[in-house]
């Protein structure tokens, strides 16, 4: 079983840098240093339920999520690791599909999965499959993106429709018996980021708006930069079905996870260039300026509501639950 499973992943990831006979991948440092002056290193544990959902699966999610955590640091993503924890009795067919999805996603994104691990745990000791992917990338010289770099006057952009991953996952679980065609937005954002940075050097900070949605990311930036952020509800792009989904369950779409959306904080003089750059890329077609950085109430995110009033967009306490009141 174990050997079979190792084979499934090794076979799917097969590439010249993956050395299944060694305990570690060995990557040329000269080549890395030529590409930039800093190595970016990140890790994400992916525990999505269900494993397959409209728009993706756990494998694609692991690859894209890790690429995105590199990309939002301005890094060119290059190498991934993949550690799979597998429940005894999980079908090899399922694992093969996930491994192939990872390999496919990595290939499309131009990154290589160079090291890995698989562990099988007894039935009931995990829920089918968890994947932890770590990533390495190189940050080109001069690129400086920091959560603490937002300044009053900066504009806040997103690259497209919000909340789709979170809504797709909730719908796919089927617990609320809602039927929709919402798909996860799961996608690798590094090319979009590269295009953005090339045209808008005034980008101060990027962050992929995953768990906790843009509300959480904006709060993190506001706190790290000691600035206020004000967004305009009317400018937050959202698919009609996502809005309907949230209305039915009483959820706030600002807190729904995205897996192909980033928040960009851009110096005012580069705002238009940034918007143009984003909109020129397929993953940024629906990009929008959603708000701006302010001097008011540092650390706090405020939203101008549809009605013209304001409300605070706080950090999420626990996970959002569907409600009826």
């Amino acid at each position: 079983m174990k050997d079979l499973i190792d084979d499934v992943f090794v076979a799917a990831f097969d590439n010249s840098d993956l050395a299944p006979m060694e305990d570690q991948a060995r990557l040329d440092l000269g080549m890395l240093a030529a590409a930039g002056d800093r190595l970016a290193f990140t890790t994400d544990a992916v525990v999505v339920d269900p494993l397959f959902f409209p728009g993706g699966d756990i494998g694609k999610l692991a690859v894209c999520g890790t690429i995105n955590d590199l990309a939002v640091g301005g890094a060119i993503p290059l190498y991934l690791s993949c550690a799979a924890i597998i429940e005894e009795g999980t079908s090899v067919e399922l694992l093969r599909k996930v491994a192939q999805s990872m390999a496919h996603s990595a290939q499309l994104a131009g990154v290589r999965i160079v090291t890995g691990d698989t562990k099988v745990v007894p039935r009931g000791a995990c829920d089918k499959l968890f994947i932890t992917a770590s990533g390495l990338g190189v940050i080109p010289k001069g690129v400086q993106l920091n959560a603490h770099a937002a300044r009053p006057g900066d504009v806040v952009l997103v690259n497209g429709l919000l909340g789709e991953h979170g809504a797709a996952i909730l719908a796919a679980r089927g617990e609320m018996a809602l039927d929709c065609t919402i798909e996860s937005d799961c996608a690798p954002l590094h090319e979009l980021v590269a295009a953005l940075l090339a045209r808008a050097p005034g980008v101060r900070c990027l962050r992929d708006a995953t768990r906790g949605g843009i509300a959480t990311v904006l709060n993190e930036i506001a706190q790290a930069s000691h600035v206020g952020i004000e967004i305009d509800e009317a400018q937050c792009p959202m698919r009609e079905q996502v809005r309907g989904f949230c209305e039915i369950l009483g959820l706030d779409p600002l807190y729904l996870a995205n897996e192909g959306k980033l928040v960009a904080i851009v110096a005012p003089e580069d705002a238009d260039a940034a918007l143009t750059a984003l909109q020129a890329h397929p993953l940024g077609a629906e990009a929008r300026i959603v708000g701006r950085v302010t001097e008011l109430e540092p650390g706090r995110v405020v939203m101008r509501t549809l009605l013209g009033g304001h409300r605070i967009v706080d950090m999420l306490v626990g996970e959002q639950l569907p409600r009826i009141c």
Partner: protein
Amino acid sequence: MCLGIPGRIVRIDDVDRKLATVDVAGVKRQINIACIVNEAHPVEHCVGAWVLVHVGFAMARIDEREAALTLQILQELGEAQAELEAIASSPGSSP
């Protein structure tokens, strides 16, 4: 309390158990329509009806005429104000 959302009935699923599918902005869900059917409105004729959905039950039909009336009042308020403002800001008016 009592989150309610307007939706449109798009299919009857079970006449006896009074189950129908409602559409809210493209999201569909099966709901119980027992509270909005009666002899005047049999189950079979509910497709197309706009209803207020609460916890999986249609609790009211939405009265299109009443909705329009409400909006009309708001509309008129807005227009009245716009006129006033227009007058207030017209060159000939006193400051």
